[in-house]
């Protein structure tokens, strides 16, 4: 994953290590069997995408949306928000009207 990676067509095919790395970024834990299977399947999809990666489209601007997005503003007026208890009712764990989560940082040494 070097920042000066070569063009997609000449780069090495997706590796097992790439899949393990990407799964960790996405907070997914894969079994060895899944790593094998997903590597082969994702490689097929990326091979298909080589047609697109090989095009010279440097003259075109990328489009993130089909329409031109403009900033949308509304009057800054108070209005009711979602009901707090109704929102919290959907959470797996709640304490004192707040979402309860496990420890986020390690205990102090």
């Amino acid at each position, binding site marked *: 994953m070097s920042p000066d990676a070569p063009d997609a067509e000449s780069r090495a095919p997706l590796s097992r290590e790439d899949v393990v790395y990407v799964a960790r970024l996405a907070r997914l834990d894969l079994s060895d069997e899944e790593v094998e299977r997903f590597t082969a*399947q994702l490689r097929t999809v990326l091979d298909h995408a080589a047609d697109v990666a090989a095009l010279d489209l440097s003259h075109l601007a990328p489009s993130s949306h089909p329409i031109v997005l403009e900033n949308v503003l509304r009057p800054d007026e108070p209005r009711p928000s979602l009901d707090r208890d109704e929102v919290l009712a959907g959470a797996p764990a709640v304490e004192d009207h707040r979402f309860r*989560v496990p*420890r986020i940082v390690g205990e102090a040494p």
Partner: protein
Amino acid sequence: MSSAVSVSDDVRSGRRPARAVAEQALAAVGAGDGELRAFLTVLADEALRQADEVDATVAAGRDPGPLAGVPVALKDNLCTRGVATSCGSRILEGWRPPYDATVVTALRGAGAVTLGKTNMDEFAMGSSTENSAFGPTRNPRDRGKVPGGSSGGSAAAVAAGFTPLALGSDTGGSIRQPAALCGVVGMKPTYGRISRYGLVAFASSLDQIGPFATTVEDAALLFDVLAGHDPLDSTSLPSEPEPTRPGVHEGAEGVRVGLCRDLVDDCAPDVVARVHDAAEALAKAGAKVQEISVPEFRYGLSAYYLIAPAEASSNLARYDGVRYGLRVEAGDSAAMNTATRTAGFGSEVKRRIMLGTYALSAGYYDAYYAQAQRVRTLVMQAFDRAYASVDVLLGATAPTTAFDLGSKVDDPMAMYMNDVCTIPSNLAGHPAISVPFGTGDDGLPVGVQVLAPALGEATMFRVAQAVEAHAPVGPTEEAGW
């Protein structure tokens, strides 16, 4: 058979109580859905209560609205306050949203009766509804076949005659492809024309909500109820929509139709034949049909399968076991996030999250994601060139008729190929509709697709209705609603 138009007319005029309509729909679901599994949740009590309210409004001499007493089924990625909304995923199993999607509010305001929530590929990722965590939906035309997807439950519910109308969402063809495979009408509107507020996000720059129906006029009726600006969706178009239903029957005379080779040639021969039949029928109806080529469409599939997973990998980051749905406890927060997502997501969702994460990662962003966005520009410009010489494009909706359950689940690329004809309209944000037109060699429905430029819904519906009017008598007429 009763269309939504005739149900609404009958209920508004007092000829038929909404309660009787709701009871008929619920009885049909009760009798037939055990085998089909189109529904994840049936809202029997709520449907009857809504129907009674409609009848009370009629009895009081007031108009309940254009969908008075008409049953509508909702794809399970549309938020319904207090009613389970799972997106076909374990990770949201049992979650009850604290608010209604804008389309749900609009349906209630128009007098519709919400019948239940329909099955779907998990988070709308799939083309067969086999990726639902709650089991597949079967095709009502042939129970050994898939209904298409991802809105397979909504398509099947309409095709089976459970309901005259349903809503789905279409990110790369998820309304039109199942409509084609089930032999019903399915339509994706212009991006921003129908509010996405309360639609659980998959790929936000591509997602649109749209109608399923048994007739083009019914689809236009439902579209008209839902189209319009919504301040709760920042991508909602500010312009006031023109009603489309009044012009649906104006015919195709004089309309310039481009028979698009790139949306036909690679399809199965029986599908190709039906599209050519439809083009001929339009020509006889007075349309000016010409062949046209838009070779840039061939790059749409690759671009889509980089853009949609990239957006999904970001949108689905919110399922972390904190605010809603499943939590699997495991040590600290990061371990809990990972355990929750690993247990809660199915294989296809994991595949797309990883593909998107990869396409967005350092060193690959420009080669894959940014390049795909340039292809999006290329496809949009190609559409513009085509629409300089024609008013609508005509093509196939799906490359084949419905395929066997289980036949493509282990081959993602083969499954993705189902979307090859529908993806260009999503990339460009344009409207498109699938209309049943005869059958393939296997006797299963074939869908013909009519594509139009942004906000071209009125012309698109007119041409689609002309296609429908000349279709060989097909399975839709036998649905018997």
